[in-house]
């Protein structure tokens, strides 16, 4: 019987070897399995890390901190995220929870916040902490957000559906990132139904939607800045080129009427290009559009960063590109004749843009044609106080010639001084801006806009405000909010 016993042993040994192979196979598959649904490994591991804090630009105001949970059954300390400012910075900061994963900077900077970034200092600290048996600590993030101006923006937007964003044109630092309706990120874990019940004067209210970078609005007349840049850059039109406004523009044999957004009489007669922008005369821009063609406007828009996701430090799924949209998808027509150049020129057609993109348009004009890379993060600081990463200003787009930028600055200054946006005037500060009132096709449901920068020369603030479901004009609804934000950033109380 012994030969059989020996063989039986080898059969069993083979089975045990197969077991070891199977276990090894799962180890090899671990990276794939970690992110699978219902796998607690990654989530629980993250919960045992003391995440870094998230601060406002002052480095003192805390946007996100940790609460220690010590439960007997856990046998160790868990850290649960708390957001002391509630809905104030819900969209840019986001949330980190057990149930619903993460959003905002909490998601995109997760590696830094959990100290799992491949920075040599961080790795060294983690190793030492591990050897000491200490809790792993993440790196702190200091954002560029000005808490005071953020408060001003959020309360000015309260009760509306819209967004406001302000940034420094010279550095790209985002100073204000406000989206309403907002939500309290502390409710995401456990009381999510309360967030789902939030109502707003728009449907769906979508409080989780970050309207700054994800919200698509029709730009209306604010897009005339891009059209004007295309026209001036091409040399086809100068500031003083004259046009005759008959109150309408003929396209495809049909009249396209001027819209209520323009100020003054319905028919201006002979005007310069500069005056056309000042009073937002659609008929003139319609003519300009026909003259330079849809292709050159699309190309100029791309120079401004349209058709791309602005490279801000948020998760890609929270950033939408701006441009022409067809059936809910970004649309870059091969045949420029597929786009109506006249209506395109004054921001109608099928244009959909984010407030962030329009703020970058204003910033480009303000910064002599160069658009700086937008950034929400000022610096990342290790637990020992050492700065491990600091955001350096970087050029993102060369949007136009410096001369064009200077001319547009003068034209946009006139808009605030004597055009459609007189409501945005601030005593002692020259503000340059452009209003927009876009028809959505439904009465009282316009998208209204104001984009601006201040001071007009050497601007440190560029801002965009967009509101949906408005019955008024951009100058009447959005401009006062932009003004309040600029004043808050300049250190004046509104």
């Amino acid at each position, binding site marked *: *019987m*012994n*030969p*059989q*016993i*020996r063989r*039986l*042993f080898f059969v*069993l*040994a083979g*089975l*045990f070897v*197969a*077991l*070891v192979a*199977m*276990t*090894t196979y*799962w*180890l090899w*598959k*671990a990276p*794939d*399995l*970690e992110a*699978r*649904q*219902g*796998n*607690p*490994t990654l989530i*629980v*591991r993250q919960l045992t890390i003391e995440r870094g804090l998230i601060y406002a630009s002052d480095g003192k105001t805390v946007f996100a901190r940790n609460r220690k*949970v*010590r*439960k*007997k*059954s*856990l*046998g*160790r300390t*868990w850290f649960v995220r708390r957001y002391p400012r509630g809905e104030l910075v819900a969209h840019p900061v986001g949330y980190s929870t057990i149930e619903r994963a993460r959003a905002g900077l909490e998601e995109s900077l997760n590696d830094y916040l959990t100290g799992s970034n491949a920075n040599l200092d961080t790795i060294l600290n983690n190793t030492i902490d591990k050897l000491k048996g200490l809790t792993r600590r993440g790196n702190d993030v200091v954002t560029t957000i000005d808490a005071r101006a953020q408060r001003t923006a959020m309360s000015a937007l309260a009760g509306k559906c819209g967004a406001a964003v302000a940034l420094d044109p010279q550095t790209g630092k985002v100073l204000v990132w406000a989206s309403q309706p907002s939500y309290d990120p502390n409710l995401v874990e456990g009381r999510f139904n309360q967030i789902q019940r939030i109502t707003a004067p728009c449907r769906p209210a979508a409080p989780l939607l970050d309207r700054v970078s994800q919200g698509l609005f029709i730009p209306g007349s604010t897009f005339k800045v891009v059209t004007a840049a295309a026209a001036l850059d091409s040399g086809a039109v100068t500031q003083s080129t004259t046009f005759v406004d008959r109150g309408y523009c003929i396209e495809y044999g049909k009249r396209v009427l001027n819209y209520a957004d323009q100020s003054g009489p319905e028919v201006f007669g002979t005007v310069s290009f500069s005056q056309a922008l000042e009073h937002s005369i659609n008929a003139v821009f319609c003519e300009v559009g026909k003259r330079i063609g849809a292709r050159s406007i699309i190309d100029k828009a791309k120079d401004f960063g349209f058709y791309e996701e602005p490279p801000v430090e948020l998760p890609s799924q929270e950033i939408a590109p701006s441009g022409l949209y067809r059936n809910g998808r970004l649309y870059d027509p091969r045949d420029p004749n597929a786009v109506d150049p006249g209506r395109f020129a004054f921001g109608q057609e099928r244009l959909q843009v984010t407030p962030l993109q329009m703020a970058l348009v204003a910033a480009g004009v303000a910064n002599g044609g160069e658009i700086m890379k937008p950034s929400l993060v000022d610096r990342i600081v290790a637990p020992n106080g050492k700065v491990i990463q600091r955001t350096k200003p970087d050029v993102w787009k060369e949007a136009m010639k410096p001369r064009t930028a200077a001319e547009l600055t003068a034209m946009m200054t006139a808009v605030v001084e004597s055009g459609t946006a007189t409501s945005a005037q601030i005593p002692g500060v020259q503000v340059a801006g452009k209003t927009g009132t876009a028809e959505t096709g439904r009465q009282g449901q316009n998208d209204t806009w104001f984009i601006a920068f201040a001071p007009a020369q050497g601007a440190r603030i560029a801002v965009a405000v967009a509101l949906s479901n408005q019955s008024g004009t951009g100058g009447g609804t959005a401009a006062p909010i932009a003004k309040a934000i600029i004043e808050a950033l300049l250190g004046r109380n509104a």
Partner: protein
Amino acid sequence: MTLRNRELVNLLMVGLLTAAGFAAVYIARQEVVSAGSLSYAAFFLALFVAAHVVVRVALPDADPFLLPLVGLLTAVGLTMIYRIDPDLALRQGLWVVVGLVAFAGLVLVVRDYRTLDRYKYVLGLTAIFLLALPAVPALGRTINGANLWVGVGGIVFQPGEFAKVLLVVFLAGYLRDNRELLSLGSGRFALPSPKHFGPLLVIWGGAMLVLFQTNDLGGGLLYFSIFLAMLWVATARWPYVAVGLGLFAIGAYALYHVTPHVRDRISIWLDCSWVFSSDCPVYKEGYQLAQSIYAISGGGFFGQGLGRGVLVTPEGNTYIPYLETDFIFAGIAQELGLAGAAGVILLYLVFCYRGFRIAMLANDGFSKLLAVGLTAALGIQAFIIMGGVSGLIPLTGITLPFVSYGGSSIVANFLIIGLLLMISNHVNRDTA
């Protein structure tokens, strides 16, 4: 060094490892476990030293590695259970006491295991009686979809675990008596006459009945594998194995179509294992297997560390249902890693090696077959549950010998160790 001194030294090393394991859990989970529980390790060592004394007195020539191997497996299990729930570990400790008392009783009372040969038919009938017990309406308890338990008063036990031991004793005696007859048959593929072939069919039918009645593949697979292994060792005729496996496949196929429970198990295995496709119902029927695979894959090479793995939810439940019993291998892989899991597998392999070695050294057929059967029973059982938990084969709920939480299993397996040591003692004394 004498055999017994070698055993004692091995046991002391096991005791040290156990102390280290308990200390590691204590350090990781100070808030949950009390310092007093550290004495469990000392208590555990004392138990095995007591068992060692029994062996020293009654079986001085027995194999010196079996008891330390079993001690280490028990220690690994106890440490894991302690890490999951200290109260449960205390109860498991009490079961180890009962198991060792049963072990000592067997060794000291029976003295010569060969007398069991005389009672083989009584024992065989008892085994069938035990297997049928859960079907008695007043006694049976259904846990996790399988009717394997019997409840009397407050005590619930699994008669199948004891039936396993008795069946092996019966088969050893029966096959020793009939192996010549069963080996007959002309030609290479010829089978013996139905008269001798009959018992195979009877046992196959019995295993299938158990399968249907317990609603679980695990038990049937185990009994049938033990039977086939012993039959093959006794007769050296591989057609038995082929026909036996074929019959089992037919039975399993029929079961697959008749029992939804078995069908679910198979489809979950197909969806969740190997490829772990997106069809795997991770929140429904596949939850257990998916969580088990997550735990194994998350362990890495050296594990998350005792008490530091992701096994227990904030509410104090385990992520894997039945972690402390059927799924304890997944817990070991999570906290001790591939190294720990492979170590446990290696312990079973060494155990099988020692067990089969005893069988090969034995002079009489009964001792050989008994040692082979008992060893194979433990080895196959270990493989079935570790393979099921890791997704290698469809999942069937049986315990991991010596490691899983469970009184019946611990006591029955200590009886197996007692028998193996008795055979070993007999064999070594004969050869010495």
